[in-house]
């Protein structure tokens, strides 16, 4: 019984693995990031500023701002390319729902809901 020619097989496999690694590199470099909402930053000055930090492919962002006492009509910004929002609103308790989605994908969406007790901080204070 003749044996296995391990050396010959090894060199062929080595060549093959190099091709596998090139393919892997291509896949990794071209892989779209997975949609993820990392953080919602809220800054209170004389406006309520919201920045949505999310990862994904060709992102769009939106905010729903709800006055928890119902005195003010809910603000729905609709999706926009910018991740930064600024609201000139009266002091009060609000619910902020921050959304992020990928433009090319209809069903992709991540969101986070945050309660905010907003009190304007005036510049000359």
């Amino acid at each position, binding site marked *: *019984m003749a044996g296995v020619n391990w050396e010959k097989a090894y060199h062929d496999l080595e*060549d093959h693995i190099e*091709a*596998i690694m090139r393919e892997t590199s291509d896949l990794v470099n071209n892989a779209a990031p997975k949609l993820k909402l990392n953080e919602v930053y809220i800054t209170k000055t004389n406006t309520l500023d919201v920045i949505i930090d999310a990862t994904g492919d060709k992102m769009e962002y939106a905010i729903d701002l709800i006055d928890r006492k119902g005195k003010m009509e809910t603000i729905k910004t609709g999706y926009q390319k910018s991740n930064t929002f600024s609201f000139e609103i009266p002091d009060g308790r609000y619910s902020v729902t921050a959304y992020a989605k990928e433009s090319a994908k209809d069903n992709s969406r991540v969101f986070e809901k945050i309660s905010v007790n907003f009190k304007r901080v005036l510049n000359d204070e």
Partner: protein
Amino acid sequence: MKYLMICNAYPTLQNLYANSFLHRRVKAYQQKGLEVDIVVITTKVLKDKYYDGVHIKYMDEYQIASYLKVNDYSTVLFHFINKKMFYGIEQLEEDRRPNIVVWLHGFEAEAWHRRYYNFLENVAQLDNALERKETVFKPQREFIRDIMTRDDLNIKFIYVSQRFKELYVDPYVGVVPEKYSIIHNIIDDELFEYHKKSADDRMKICTIRPFTARNYANDITVDVIKQLSRKKYFNKLEFNIYGDGKLFNVLTNSLRQFDNVNLHKGFVKQDDIPEIHKQHGIYLGPSRHDSQGVSLGEAMSSGLVPVTNAIGGIPEFISHKETGMLASRDNVSEMVEHIDYLYKHARNFKKMSAQAAKSIKKQAGLNVVINKEIEVITNGWS
């Protein structure tokens, strides 16, 4: 003497292309006087079928076991073997076991990662393959190794190429069986009849490939055409791309800009291929994984000069610049140079075309293969 073939699929009127190469064999065996019954292993309850004079039975492993107990076959022939297909043999008393011939074609006897291209479409596919590593691939390897090393079986193995054996199967299984033969898949030289090529035919380039997985390397075909488009003579060339599969549009869309590249999306029946071969001079068939390269061989048989890669079993059938042109793995520039060479050396192209047809017929023509297989099936049993 009666022979039984056990396989995973066999062509029927409803599915003409399931392992059609097995039917080609069976018809040839019949013509040589061998009586062969067919059993397709399946868990479905299916009635017997008749196709082109061949009786096909459908059984699970337990039915095969019962069938073998009451039917005496001198030799059982296995294609795409697995443990379930072999169960019936195991259930027979040792002195009642028939002679066994096992054909090793590809996936059933090589490492799963050799076909890694097939698992890269999404993460779930890759995870599934990794999961099957333990549950399917490892037991299959142990099974092949077991039947290759047992001394209670009168068993022979047929590999479709020497390089397939040495590069893929041997290191995967870790052993070499005592009795084996290298017998290639049939290149049907009656269907793929040689037609002499003219110098102008070298400017007509075709490819007929599935577009279902990356191992078929159709992306390389696309890149080769794009690189060739920078040549002054590009517009003199004509390309016809035939095939079907989920990758067809994705890969070929970028070629729509070229007037001389014709895209033919759709499954090509085997009977239609010779006519396509007749109209072309070069077969562009890059590959990342092949135990033999049957479509390349069929093109050669028709007189086309193959341009492909020196991987797997392919170099066993194509001698560079004699019967075709070989580039190293994934090497687009080399393939472009090879087509450039054929364009600039019309006389050599014609010579290679004739040599390719002659060589493949001698190596894997219908009669050559069938005579070798019948020799293995009928002779040399202890």
